[in-house]
């Protein structure tokens, strides 16, 4: 008897403090756009993702707005071990309501477990209305769509210092040949033309896989690019060997990037900082998120501290293709509350508010470009919003995990151990 009394006391204290804390977090808010998501009280939707602070704080603040207007609580959990933990949790029957998955390959793996559910009709309508059709294809498994893109970014960018460009008397290149000419000018001025660093802990090597992907997309076009990550075009094929040779000439020689072994041990975060500003290296090919690696107070724009331009095509055959990346909220049940949250996440309502908070881009064309205050992000968002034109996903993230892992590791060997591109290709192919 005594035990049960104690338990009730503990439980009531817990319940009491819970209400106290939630009472303080609610606030009056403008709910105009939120009426479409209805009202539902007493429901909590668990979201699990790899997004961490400071980004996570910005995101949860916006979620609080949603909660204040709809009554649906969102419990967010972020971890840097997301890719490891999600399969373990789903396998163990402890799936979150929604997981925000950054790799289409992992989406497919989750669909294969039978636990993921396709998107609601409303989300599908949002995808068709607001996004380039390419995005839908990334989460389509057996004809069913499993997620709308959440955040999106472009990897096809080159970062540079406007001051250094001015010193050389050059402007933003629009063709590969122009870019090569700038690199030659840097070299003549005693500056390493390309900044490079591929160290990234357990994922060391991934930035170099992006270089191969960018070149494959430009040289072979989106169709062959897709055949490549599907395993229909081998790394050892003459086409891919040609691509890899071009990458080697671009960012795989001492003259272009400096000591190759240093590339293998330099953190990718440190690749362009402070090198670009100090003028020790000229240009850095890296995705749009690299803006957050610059020190606080850095200004972005054509006449500011740092800027980025679109990595130009090597030929005119395929237009200006983009290598994009994105995260996809995938639901693990079709509860009403879960569906309303996925509706919300796929709508321009969330994306616009998130874009205004800065440091984030969406491929959602319902977001007005004026929501982006950062000039670099505006450039990125504009290219991502285009409903036409080739957008491909990070190929290595689409490959089976074993091949992706081998791709990183073997590219690291190219830099660290001087392994030839031919041997690198053969070793990766062995993992299919």
């Amino acid at each position: 008897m005594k035990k049960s009394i104690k338990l009730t006391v503990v439980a009531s204290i817990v319940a009491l403090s819970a209400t106290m804390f939630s009472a303080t977090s609610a606030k009056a808010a403008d709910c105009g756009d939120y009426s479409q998501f209805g009202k539902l009280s007493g429901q909590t939707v668990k979201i699990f993702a790899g997004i961490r602070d400071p980004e996570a704080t910005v995101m949860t603040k916006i979620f609080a707005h949603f909660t204040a207007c709809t009554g649906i609580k969102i419990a967010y959990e972020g971890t840097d071990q997301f890719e490891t933990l999600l399969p373990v949790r789903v396998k163990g029957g402890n799936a979150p309501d929604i997981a925000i998955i950054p790799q289409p390959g992992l989406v497919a793996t989750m669909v294969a477990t039978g636990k993921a559910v396709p998107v609601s009709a409303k989300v599908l309508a949002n995808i068709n209305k607001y996004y380039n059709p390419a995005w839908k294809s990334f989460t389509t498994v057996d004809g069913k769509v499993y997620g709308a893109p959440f955040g999106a970014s472009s990897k096809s960018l080159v970062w540079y210092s406007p001051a250094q460009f001015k010193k050389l008397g050059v402007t933003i290149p629009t063709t590969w040949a122009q870019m090569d000419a700038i690199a030659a000018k840097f070299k003549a001025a005693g500056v390493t033309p390309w900044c490079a660093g591929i160290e990234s802990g357990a994922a060391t090597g991934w930035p170099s896989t992006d270089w191969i992907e960018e070149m494959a997309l430009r040289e072979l076009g989106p169709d062959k690019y897709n055949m490549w990550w599907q395993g229909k075009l081998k790394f050892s094929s003459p086409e891919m060997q040609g691509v890899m040779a071009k990458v080697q000439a671009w960012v795989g020689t001492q003259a272009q990037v400096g000591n190759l072994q240093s590339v293998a041990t330099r953190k990718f975060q440190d690749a362009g900082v402070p090198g670009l500003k100090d003028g020790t290296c000229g240009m850095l090919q890296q995705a749009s998120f690299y803006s957050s690696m610059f020190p606080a107070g850095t200004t972005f724009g054509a006449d500011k501290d740092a800027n980025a331009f679109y990595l130009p095509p090597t030929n005119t055959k395929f237009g200006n293709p983009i290598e994009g990346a994105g995260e996809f909220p995938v639901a693990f049940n079709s509860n009403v509350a879960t569906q309303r949250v996925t509706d919300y996440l796929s709508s321009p309502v969330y994306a616009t508010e998130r874009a205004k908070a800065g440091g984030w881009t969406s491929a959602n064309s319902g977001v007005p470009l004026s929501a982006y205050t950062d000039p670099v992000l505006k450039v990125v968002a504009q290219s991502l919003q285009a409903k036409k034109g080739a957008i491909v996903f990070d190929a290595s993230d689409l490959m089976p995990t074993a091949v992706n892992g081998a791709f990183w590791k073997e590219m690291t060997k190219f830099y660290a151990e001087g392994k030839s591109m031919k041997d690198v290709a053969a070793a990766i192919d062995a993992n299919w």
Partner: protein
Amino acid sequence: MVTWSGLLSNAAPKLFQIFAVLAIFFGIYAAAFAYGARIKGKSQSKIALVIFLVPALILAMTGLGIPAIQTIMESFKNADSSKWVGFKNYAVAFQDPEIVRTFINTFAWVIISPVIVTALGLTLATMLNKMKREALAKTLIFMPMAISFVGGSLIWKFVYGYNDPGTPQTGLVGQILTWLHIDPPHLLLWSPWNNGLLMIVYIWGFTGFAMVILSAAIKGIPAEIEEAAQLDGATGIKMFRTITVPMVRNTIIVVLTTAMVGTLKLFDVIHTMTGGNFKTDVLSNRMFDENFVYLNYGRGASLAVLIFLGVIPITYYNIRSLRAERKR
């Protein structure tokens, strides 16, 4: 952002479940003991045996036995455990040059680092024994043991860190070499010696432990024996060789085998410092990669089984020599 309300509303039902399960568990046990206490006569000891052993066996089965059997079964299945593939995972493990490299590295780790750790620990324990301010010296040497290997590895990563010659050096070694007008090398890429550099991290972290255990054993040597040896003229090295080492032989074996098992499953140093790149991969890191990075559960399980098989002879040697000692 985790809010308190979210945390509590999530945790409250789980806490309640835990309390409920514990209450049921203790309830059943109180009943079993009450029943056991009433029984008299011959069957008493047998029932007592059952009451005490069964929960331990159940816990051992669910915590160790079943997962071990599952792992062994998974090691004969394909990447997502959907098909039986026989010994294919093991065949791959012994043929893939990458994995063969991990065997060689693991073997080097298991042989070299425990021997150094034990030798160093024994030397330090002997030298510091009865020295002035012994406690202070020991505390300093033991200190790294209080740092997790991940933290320690991050520290050592800075020590070995590379910057191009002529630029400001962040690595300690690089800076010292720069002062000596030597161009800093890429220490972590310096195969195969980089394996040794990683071992230093482990030795740095584990020597304190070996020293403390061995020091306790040395202090346990009866004073009469030492005095008798001194009267017979034994000093210094001879004393160490003929008295100290034989008297603490048991402890040396325990320290050595503990360190061997520890290095066999060593993962954090490699994972943090090189991620298994630059020809430094070891079995346990590869097992993690196969399981959680490449999602190849079959191959990961087969490596886990191989590690398990590797532990057996070491443990066997440990138990056998301890038994032999007890018989004497």
